[in-house]
């Protein structure tokens, strides 16, 4: 599979003045739907298939008045899934037309990332009937994006991905309201995220995925019986094509079924090829394993020992890393390296080349320099299409209940024919994010922090040396001595004086527990 060919076909489909969005959509959805059918029998496959055939042989006879901007039959492909019961429907699924109204009018979905996956996601969601879509991305369009991020054109280079993508979809899909947000996800407050019923991530950044995952887990509220308050749980559908975590699972699963020799084979394959692997998963915060539960499956970025880079370079990457880590700060102590600036990259390239010649190392090129410095992993348009289609179909199923959802992790490898493996990733009992259900802690506004510390030393906590933080502040730490000393005066301040209110959260660390415990303060009247 070749990325550029694939993309040409895709952007061609969207560029052409197609008679109706459904037709354009079917062209795009076809390769993806084939992949899904062979894999999980999902609803979006059926959506796409229905859109492709569009032959009206079903004759359900459901009389639906067309919406003001809708033409007759516009949503037939969706109605086929929503007004009748399919074999994979959830037990609570009640076929009805209102489901379509919910999808079209009420359901609000947030797409995080408007890059390779994001463009596919926006197109898939808009053509599956989601109309109230928000998209958030901090990046601007680079010329190198255009081969697969098909909502962008050459004239858009330098502009916000979120804005251009939203404009494109709004112009193209009648009635669709995509709202762009050109900023970091961290710039938005909790209340922003609380508006949505669903969050779909098409991100390549692990820190960003950790952040949104932790935020969504933190939004979940529990009632007195420790049950989730309905509506506070926002499902997160996470798509990824970086092809990293997949490898370890391949090893794991293949070892399980076949034996060790194949493990070795897949390891080699995994090291040689990148960009053909991906995964889609459904995270129900507070109910199923979260992104953080599986973070250990992402191997750390390849880093070379600093001493190797400095004294015994053997491969081109060692020379490039040397130019980046050692030579750049030496030459420009006051200028941060901008990996998007071609002049900076060129400087690194020339320095790395010099060093490579010194050590008789072949293969330092400008492209390699760019790749090493920016840690670029090749992106393949077809992988994006498959993963985004899987994610969009999960969004559709979660929103409507018309089919069983993915439980809960699907990995995909399109490198050598096609391989998918779906399994349930289990919640990690000591996950830093999702095992941390806040404990109610009775106290009063007028008692000093010291009283709280004393109660924490009793059952059930038995904390001997707690470190207490909350509201982004450090209230008390038992170690190190300097910090203990500077926070000690807080022990004699009352909770009210420390700015703590009823319902506030405290994080309490202690050697007794593997991670800080969350306390939710319950003030006595």
């Amino acid at each position, binding site marked *: 599979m070749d990325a550029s060919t694939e993309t040409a076909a895709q952007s061609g489909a969207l560029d052409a003045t197609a008679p109706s969005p459904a037709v354009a959509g079917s062209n795009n959805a076809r390769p993806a739907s084939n992949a899904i059918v062979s894999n999980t029998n999902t609803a979006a496959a059926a959506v796409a298939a229905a859109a492709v055939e569009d032959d009206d042989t079903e004759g359900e006879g459901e009389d639906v008045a067309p919406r003001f901007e809708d033409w007759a039959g516009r949503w037939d492909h969706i109605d086929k899934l929503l007004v009748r019961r399919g074999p994979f429907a*959830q037990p609570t*699924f009640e076929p009805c037309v209102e489901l379509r109204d*919910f999808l079209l009018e*009420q*359901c609000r979905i947030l797409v995080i990332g408007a890059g390779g996956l994001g463009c596919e996601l926006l197109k898939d969601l808009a053509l599956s009937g989601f109309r109230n879509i928000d998209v958030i991305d901090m990046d601007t369009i680079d010329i190198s994006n255009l081969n697969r991020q098909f909502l962008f054109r050459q004239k858009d280079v330098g502009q916000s991905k979120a804005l251009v993508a939203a404009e494109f979809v709004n112009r193209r899909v009648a009635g669709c309201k995509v709202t762009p947000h050109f900023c970091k996800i961290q710039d938005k407050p*909790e209340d922003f995220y609380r*508006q949505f*019923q*669903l969050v779909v991530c098409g991100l390549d950044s*692990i820190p960003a995925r*950790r*952040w949104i995952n*932790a*935020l969504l887990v933190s939004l979940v*509220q529990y009632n007195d019986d420790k049950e989730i308050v*309905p*509506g*506070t749980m926002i*499902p997160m559908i996470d798509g990824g094509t970086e092809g990293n975590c997949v490898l370890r699972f391949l090893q794991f699963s293949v070892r399980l079924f076949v034996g060790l020799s194949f493990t070795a084979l897949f390891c080699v394959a995994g090291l040689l090829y990148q960009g053909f692997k991906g995964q889609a998963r459904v995270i129900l915060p507070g109910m199923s394993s979260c992104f*953080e539960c599986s*973070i250990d499956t*992402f191997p*750390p*970025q390849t880093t*070379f*020992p*600093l*001493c190797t880079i*400095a004294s015994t370079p053997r491969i081109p990457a060692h020379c490039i890393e040397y130019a980046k*880590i*050692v030579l750049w700060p030496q030459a420009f102590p006051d200028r941060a390296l901008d990996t998007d600036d071609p002049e900076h990259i060129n400087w690194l390239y020339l320095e790395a080349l010099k060093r490579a010649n010194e050590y008789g190392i072949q293969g330092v090129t400008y492209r390699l320099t760019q790749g090493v410095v920016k840690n670029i992993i090749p992106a393949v348009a077809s992988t994006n299409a498959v993963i985004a289609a899987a994610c969009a179909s999960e969004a559709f199923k*979660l929103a*409507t*209940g018309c089919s*069983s*959802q993915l439980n809960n992790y699907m990995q995909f490898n399109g490198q050598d024919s096609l391989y998918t493996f779906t399994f349930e990733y289990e919640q990690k009992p000591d996950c*830093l994010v999702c095992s*941390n259900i806040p404990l109610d802690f009775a106290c009063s506004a007028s008692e000093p922090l010291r009283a709280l510390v004393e109660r924490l030393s009793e059952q059930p906590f038995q904390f001997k040396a*707690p*470190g207490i*933080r909350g*509201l*982004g*502040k450090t209230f008390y*730490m*038992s*170690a*190190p*001595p300097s*910090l203990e000393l*500077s*926070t000690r005066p807080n022990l004699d301040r009352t909770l009210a004086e420390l700015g703590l*209110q009823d*319902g506030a959260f405290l*994080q309490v*660390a*202690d*050697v007794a527990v593997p*991670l*800080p415990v969350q306390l939710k303060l319950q003030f006595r009247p």
Partner: protein
Amino acid sequence: MINLFSLKQQKKDAAAAGGKKTSAAQLRTQKDINDLNLPSTCKVDFPNPDDLLTFNLAIAPDEGFYKGGLFRFTFKIGPNYPHEPPKVHCEQKIYHPNIDLQGNVCLNILREDWKPVLSINSVIYGLQFLFLEPNPDDPLNKEAAANLRENRRGFEANVTRSLRGGSVENNVFDNCMRSGNSW
């Protein structure tokens, strides 16, 4: 199984009181800091106690080549901690086989051997060890390493000169001598 359509009527409870969200990196750092158990030769201080992600370390070795010196490091903990190691930088220009003249530190657990099970405590012990047992086989300052390997007495004399702010091999070093017991 979950179906948002059936939940939509109940959607959205009031905002919970709480304040800023705590990231996984922050939680883990809070745990690491509160569990610190340092030898008397190491001290940590926080310029801003509310920000546990940025702090300073001072090491005053009580034996070895560097006895009598006081070495300052800054720690910066990134949002991906503990899946990425803390960033550690030496604030002085010192003569050391494993620390270059810009303050970069070559310590295996700060790069290739970092694992999330390691902690800030382990990094501090690792740094202290570098002053007790400088390692000539992992050089960042190649001249210093060669010297240590081939001419221990010469190396020792160079360290002593550099610690007092003298120059070695045309490089002038920072005065790192501890004055008395107040540090």
